[in-house]
């Protein structure tokens, strides 16, 4: 459990809040690069950390994320005309560049320089991999650009998707570091999902239903290790990194691409669940890419034209009670992502953590909250640079491996847990 004020501190990310300022210390995924496919394309409305913004790609290919509303009388610039190196409000023709600077107010004589005094809030938007990243913090504290491996490998090796999740970011992220639910909720999918099946590691998962957990601090967050029995007294370890504020990477299975998530608050009651899938050393096969596009693995199928999952709370996530009874899935909901999302959304928009009853296997979650609270306070009170901002904290990997019983995974798997260009993931 958390006390009410701790729960509020961690879940509120609007402007001026402690956690909101904390998120604003990082480069965050804002939208898919494919949402702004060409110069002068239609702008995209983006809400992040409780701020309504507009993503623009101008005539010269420059990107920017600006206040959605015109400084004149508050019209949404989403209706605007993207032309001649900026976006023009369709109401009275005021024009802005991608930084939010007003460059033209047609009703005023150009000579009086009125437009120079008008500036919309604007944040940088940078394309790395399939993603447009933004930094919404103070300009003088801007950190180095992100170096997550999934975003820096060649395009043919990576696939990224996002889906709308109708819950607070924290309960979504906690699901991502809660390894103990996998055996139950996703157990069957390990066998049936094309992006998971056939790994030797799946056998250990099935055979040993009493996994043992080991959590250790890392410079950027945590290592969450789960071990199960393997042959000859050895252990099968699955090691999940969590990097602040909300990045996780699921341990690999066989030579399948490796996947993981970011959870980015839209506002306090919704978030973007970002899902990436990549292979460090080879191109994704056509079959793999097709499976990802069709919503297999950690991805989902959408309501056409939106990022809302086709199975959502308005249709009871298409729950199949007969399938639940027959054991085709554990919860009756199809697909790993929606199995998670349906349950996390069912907790309510912001779960009341004063009522929960945690157990020993929840230590990963307890420790993540503890580290977030400490880091967010240090950032607020002393201006400390948060863990995870340093690109070195981002050059990490998850791993699955067999180790002798007397070897600590953080040391024995040291090499496996960092990015080694040209070396494939460590997997069983």
């Amino acid at each position: 459990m958390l006390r009410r004020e701790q729960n509020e501190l961690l879940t509120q990310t609007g402007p001026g809040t402690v956690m909101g300022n904390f998120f604003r210390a990082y480069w965050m995924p804002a939208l898919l690069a494919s949402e702004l496919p060409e110069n002068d394309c239609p702008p995209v409305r983006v809400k992040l950390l409780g701020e309504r913004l507009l993503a623009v790609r101008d005539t010269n290919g420059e990107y920017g994320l600006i206040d959605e509303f015109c400084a004149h009388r508050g019209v949404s610039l989403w209706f605007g005309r993207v032309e001649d190196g900026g976006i023009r409000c369709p109401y009275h023709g005021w024009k802005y560049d991608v930084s939010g600077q007003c460059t033209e107010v047609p009703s005023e004589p150009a000579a009086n320089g009125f437009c120079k005094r008008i500036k919309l809030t604007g944040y940088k938007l940078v394309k790395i991999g399939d993603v447009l990243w933004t930094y919404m913090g103070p300009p003088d504290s801007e950190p180095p650009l992100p170096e997550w491996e999934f975003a820096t490998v060649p395009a043919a090796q990576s696939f990224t998707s996002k889906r709308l999740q109708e819950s607070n970011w924290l309960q979504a992220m906690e699901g991502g570091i809660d390894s103990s639910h996998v055996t139950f909720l996703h157990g069957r999918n390990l066998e049936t999902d094309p992006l998971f099946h056939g790994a030797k590691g799946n056998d250990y998962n099935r055979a040993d239903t009493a996994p043992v957990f080991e959590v250790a601090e890392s410079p950027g967050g945590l290592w969450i290790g789960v071990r199960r029995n393997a042959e000859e007294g050895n252990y099968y370890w699955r090691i999940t990194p969590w990097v602040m504020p909300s990045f996780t990477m699921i341990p690999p299975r066989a030579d399948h691409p490796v996947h993981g998530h970011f959870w980015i608050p839209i506002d306090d009651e919704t978030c973007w669940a970002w899902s990436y899938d990549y292979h460090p050393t080879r191109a994704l096969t056509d079959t793999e890419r097709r499976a990802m596009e069709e919503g297999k693995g950690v991805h989902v199928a959408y309501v056409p034209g939106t990022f809302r999952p086709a199975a959502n709370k308005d249709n009871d996530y298409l729950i199949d009670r007969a399938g639940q009874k027959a054991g085709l899935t554990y919860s009756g909901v199809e697909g790993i992502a929606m199995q998670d999302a349906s349950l996390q959304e069912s907790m309510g928009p912001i779960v009341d953590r004063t009522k929960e009853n945690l157990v020993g296997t929840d230590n990963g979650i307890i420790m993540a909250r503890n580290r977030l609270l400490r880091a967010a306070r240090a950032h607020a009170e002393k201006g400390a640079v948060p863990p995870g901002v340093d690109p070195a904290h981002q050059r990490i990997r998850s791993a699955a491996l067999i180790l002798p019983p007397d070897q600590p995974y953080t040391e024995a798997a040291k090499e496996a847990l960092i990015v080694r260009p040209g070396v494939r993931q460590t997997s069983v």
Partner: protein
Amino acid sequence: MQTESARMASAREAAFRVPYPNSRPRSAHLVALDRACEPFVTHLLRDHPGRLALKLAALPDPVAAATALIAALDGTDLLVMISTSGEDSPAASLIAEACHLRRLPVTVFVLDTPERATELPERLRHLRPYAQMLVRAADPDYVEDMLTALRV
């Protein structure tokens, strides 16, 4: 279309969650495995009647004390072993064995300071088999947070 799920997961309906304490207070046994962590365990006991502690290193006959603790385990919800050095003791393995037989979950907390980062992992191999959950953290306050989170 608005289904039950959509309505029940709304902010409005979240306000109607039944307000009652859905668990009874829990109790935990804290076992200090070495001298260095004893003051810290003493600190954890303050104002918490649900927490009982055993300081093995301070006792003339730790094995006898461990046996007595085992006899008193009924009604305990959680056993937490706390260590700074990662060293093993016969008394600790006795307790761990007894917990295992009773299916009482054991959490081992190891204070993981950077100075001892090299020898500690090696020593942990003694403690590893005892724990359902092993936590290595640099901040001793974490144990207080963990106990609070677990409602003990």
